[in-house]
C-alpha cells in the first residue's frame, strides 16, 4: 500500500514536470516568435516583392495563385501571412489592398478548404476575409452557400465572422438566408451583435429591411427583435406595420415594446391614441408598456400627453414614475408649472419629479 501511494505521487510528479517543461518550452518558443516578429522575416520580404511586382504588371500568375492557395491552406502559414499583411498595410496600404483584392478567388478557395477544419481555424479565415475586405463582390453561389452554412455554426466566432463577410458583401438574399439558417438551427446570437451587424450592412439597407421583415414569420423572436431594432436605428417607413403589431395582443411582448420605442423616434399621429390608451390604462397591458410609452410620449407633446404623464407620476411602478418624470422634466416647461406636484401630498411623485428637474438643471449648468 505504501509503495503504491508513493508510486502514484511519483507518476503525478512526472506528469507535472512534463507540464512544467511544456510551459517553459512554450514561453521560450513564444519569446523566439516575438524576436522574429521584430525583424522582417523572409515571408514579409517575399510578399513585399510580390506586391511590388503586382503593382507593375497588375497581374498575378496562375502559378502564384496556386502557390497562395497551397501555402495558406496551413493555418500557421496563414497566421504568418496575416502578420506580414498587417505590416504591409501600414507601409503600403493602397498596393496591399489591390493585391489582396486580386487574390479574392484564392480566398474563396481557402474558405472551402477551411470549412472542413476546426471551428477556430474556420473563424480565423473568415475574420481575415473581413479584415481584407474580401466579399465585396460575392458572386459565387457556392461561396455564398458556404458562408450561409457557416453562419449556422455552433461557434459564436465563426457565426459572427461569416455574418461580417455577408454584411460586407451587401447581398440581401445571402444575409436573409443566413438569418433563417441561424434561427432554424436554434442558435443564440446576441441581439446586440445582430443589430450592430445589420447596421454595418454595406448594401441597400432599405431593401435588406424589407426582405427580412417579409420573412419575419419564419424567424424566431430574437431575430425579429434585432430586425426591428435595425429598422428603428437605420430608417423609418414601418409605421403602419409596427402599429398593427403593437395592437395585436397575441404578439410577443418584447416585439410590441420595440414597436413603442420605434414610435418614440418616428412620430406617427395614428399611433397617438394607442399611446394615450396605454398610459391611461385603458389598454390592459403590463407596467412595461406604460414605462416605455412614458418615454415615447416625449415626441408627442401636448396637453393630453402632459395630463397622462402627470397621472403616471403616481403610478405604483417605479419605472413608470421615473420615465414619466423624465419626459416631463425634459419637455422644457417652467418648474412653476409643476408646483401642484412639488407641493402636493404624493411623496413618490414629488421626489421623482424633483430629482429629474434638478438633474436637468445640473446638466444645463455643466454645459
Amino acid at each position, binding site marked *: *500500500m*505504501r509503495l503504491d*501511494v*508513493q508510486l*502514484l*505521487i*511519483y507518476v*503525478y*510528479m512526472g*506528469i*507535472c*514536470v512534463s*507540464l*512544467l517543461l*511544456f*510551459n*517553459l518550452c*512554450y*514561453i521560450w518558443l*513564444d*519569446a523566439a516568435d516575438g524576436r522574429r516578429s521584430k525583424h522582417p522575416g523572409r515571408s514579409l520580404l517575399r510578399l513585399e516583392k510580390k506586391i511590388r511586382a503586382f503593382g507593375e504588371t497588375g497581374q498575378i500568375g496562375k502559378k502564384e495563385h496556386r502557390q497562395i492557395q497551397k501555402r495558406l491552406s496551413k*493555418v500557421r502559414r496563414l*497566421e504568418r501571412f496575416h502578420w506580414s499583411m498587417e505590416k504591409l498595410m501600414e507601409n503600403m496600404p493602397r498596393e496591399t489592398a489591390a493585391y489582396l483584392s486580386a487574390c479574392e478567388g484564392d480566398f474563396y478557395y481557402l474558405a472551402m478548404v477551411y470549412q472542413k477544419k476546426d471551428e*477556430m*481555424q474556420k*473563424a*480565423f479565415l473568415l*475574420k481575415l476575409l473581413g479584415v481584407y475586405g474580401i466579399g465585396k463582390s460575392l458572386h459565387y453561389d457556392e461561396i455564398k452557400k458556404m458562408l450561409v452554412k457557416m453562419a449556422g455554426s455552433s*461557434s*459564436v*466566432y465563426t457565426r*459572427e465572422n461569416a455574418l461580417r463577410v455577408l454584411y460586407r458583401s451587401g447581398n440581401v438574399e445571402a444575409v436573409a438566408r443566413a438569418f433563417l439558417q441561424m434561427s432554424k438551427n436554434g442558435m*443564440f446570437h*446576441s441581439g*446586440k*451583435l445582430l443589430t*450592430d451587424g445589420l447596421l454595418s450592412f454595406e448594401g441597400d439597407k432599405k431593401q435588406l429591411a424589407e426582405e427580412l421583415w417579409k420573412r419575419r414569420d419564419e424567424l424566431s423572436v430574437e431575430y425579429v427583435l434585432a430586425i426591428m431594432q435595425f429598422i428603428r436605428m437605420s430608417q423609418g417607413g414601418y409605421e403602419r406595420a409596427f402599429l398593427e403589431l403593437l395592437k395585436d395582443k397575441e404578439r410577443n411582448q418584447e416585439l410590441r415594446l420595440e414597436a413603442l420605442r420605434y414610435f418614440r423616434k418616428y412620430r406617427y399621429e395614428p399611433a397617438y391614441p394607442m399611446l394615450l390608451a396605454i398610459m391611461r390604462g385603458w389598454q390592459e397591458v403590463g407596467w412595461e408598456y406604460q414605462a416605455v410609452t412614458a418615454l415615447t410620449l416625449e415626441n408627442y407633446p401636448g396637453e393630453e400627453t402632459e395630463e397622462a404623464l402627470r397621472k403616471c407620476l403616481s403610478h405604483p411602478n*417605479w419605472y413608470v414614475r421615473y420615465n414619466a418624470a423624465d419626459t416631463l422634466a425634459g419637455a422644457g416647461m417652467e418648474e412653476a408649472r409643476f408646483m401642484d406636484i412639488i407641493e402636493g401630498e404624493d411623496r*413618490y411623485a414629488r*421626489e*421623482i419629479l*424633483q*430629482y429629474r428637474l*434638478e*438633474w436637468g438643471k*445640473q*446638466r444645463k449648468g*455643466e454645459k
Partner: protein
Amino acid sequence: MTEFMRGFLIYVGYFFIAYLVMYSSFLFCSVLAGSLELYRQKRRNRLKNELDEDYYVPVSILVPAHNEEVTVADTVRSLLELDYLLYEIVIVDDGSTDKTAEQLVHAFDMKKIARPIRRQVFCQQEKAVYEVQIGKVLVTLIVKKNGGKADALNMGINAARYPYFICMDADSVLQADSLKEIVKPVLEDHHVVACGGLVRISNSAKLRKGRLITYHMPWNPIVGMQIMEYDRSFLASRLMMNQFNGNLIISGAFGLFQKKIVISAGGYDASTMGEDMELVMRLHVFCQKNKLPYSIQYAPGAICWSQAPSTVGDLMKQRRRWHLGLFQSMFRHRQMFLNREFGMVGYVSYFYYLLYELLSPFIELFGVFTMVAAVVLNLVHVRFMVLFYLVYALFGAVMTLTAFFARIYTHNITLRASDAGKAVLMCIAEALFFRFILAYVRITAFLGYKKRGKQWGSLKREKINIG
C-alpha cells in the same frame, strides 16, 4: 487498549492516504484542465477568435467603500479610463469614519442631489446622494448608514441603472479592457447570470491608464506566496470547475452579475462575511430550484488588480474572514452536498470545498495528533513519513509552478530570470510553510466569531501605483 489504538491508527492511516490521493488527484486534474483551457484560450486569441468590435452591454460598476480615503479617488480615476462604451460608476460610502466621501466630492466636483432610490433589495438608509457626469460616465456617490459590505452592495444594486452590474473593491484597479472581456461570456451565451474575472495582486505591478507597465515578483514573501496561491486557485481549480458550471465563488474584488436575477434571489446577504461566495451559491440554488437555465462563467482575460495584505497580521485578518465566510455559505447551502439535483456542483464543487477548504485545517490537526500517538506507539516509519511529506510538498509546489507559468505565457508577461527564481522559491516556501500559517488561521477563525459579525475587514491600505 494498545491494540485498539493500533487498529484505530491503522484505519486513520488509510483515511489519510485516501484523503491525500483524492486531493492530489483533484489538484492534478484541475491544473491539467486549467492548463489545457489556457492553451486553448491562447490559441483562440492567436487565431483572432474574439468579438473585438465595439459591442457592449450597459454595465453599472459598484464600488462599496468603507474608510477608503487613501485609495478611493484613484480607484474612480482609473475606472474613468476604462475602454468601454456605456457604463456608470456607483460608489457606496458605507458609514466611513474618515474622509472617503469628502475626497470624492472634492476630487470630482460632485453635486448633492435629491435622488430617490428604489429599494428592490434590503439595505440601510442613504444619508446623501451626489452625482456628476464626467464625459460619458455618470458617477454617483451614495453616503449611507454603516451596514457592512453586503449592505453597501445592495444599495449599489438598488441605485444601478443598467441590467448588469460589476462588484469590485475600492482598493482595486480594473485593467482598461476588463469590462470588454468580462461581458464577452454574456454576449456569447444569454444564460450567463454571473461571470468572475481574474484577480491579480497589484503590490508589485505598475499600471498606467489601466494598462500594465511593469510587473515583477516581490521580495516580500507574504505577498509572493499569495501570488502563487492566487494563480493556482484562479487558474487551476476555478477554470476546471468552469468546465461544468461548478464555480462556487466569484471574488468580491471583480465579478459581473445580471441584476434581475440577483434581485430575484434576494441580493447580497448582509448577515454573512463571505457575501461573494454566498451569493454565487444562492444563485446556483435559486436557478436550480426554479428550473432556470443558467450559467456561471469565469473570464480569465478580464483582469482586476487588487492589493494583497503584506503583513502576517493583515493576512490573518483577511483569511479569518474568508474562512468564516466559507463556513457560513457552506452551512447555509448544505442542501447542495451530494445532491443529485445539483449534479457536479453538489458532487464535485461542494464536496471539494467542504473537504479540502473548510474541514482541511481540522483534518490536518487531527493528523498531527494521530501522528504523535503513532510515534508514541512506535507505529511510524519515520524515514518514509519524512519522504512522503517532502514528495507531497514538492508535488504541490510543482503544481503551483505549472499554474504560475501557464499564466505567464497566456498573458504574454515577460519575466526576468530573477523573478522566475523567486517564483520557484515562493512555491516551495508556500508548500512547506504558508499552508501551516493558513491552517492555524483557519482553525482559530471561529474564535470571537460572533463579535466580528458584519464588520468590514479593514486592512492597511497603500496608494495604488496607477502612474
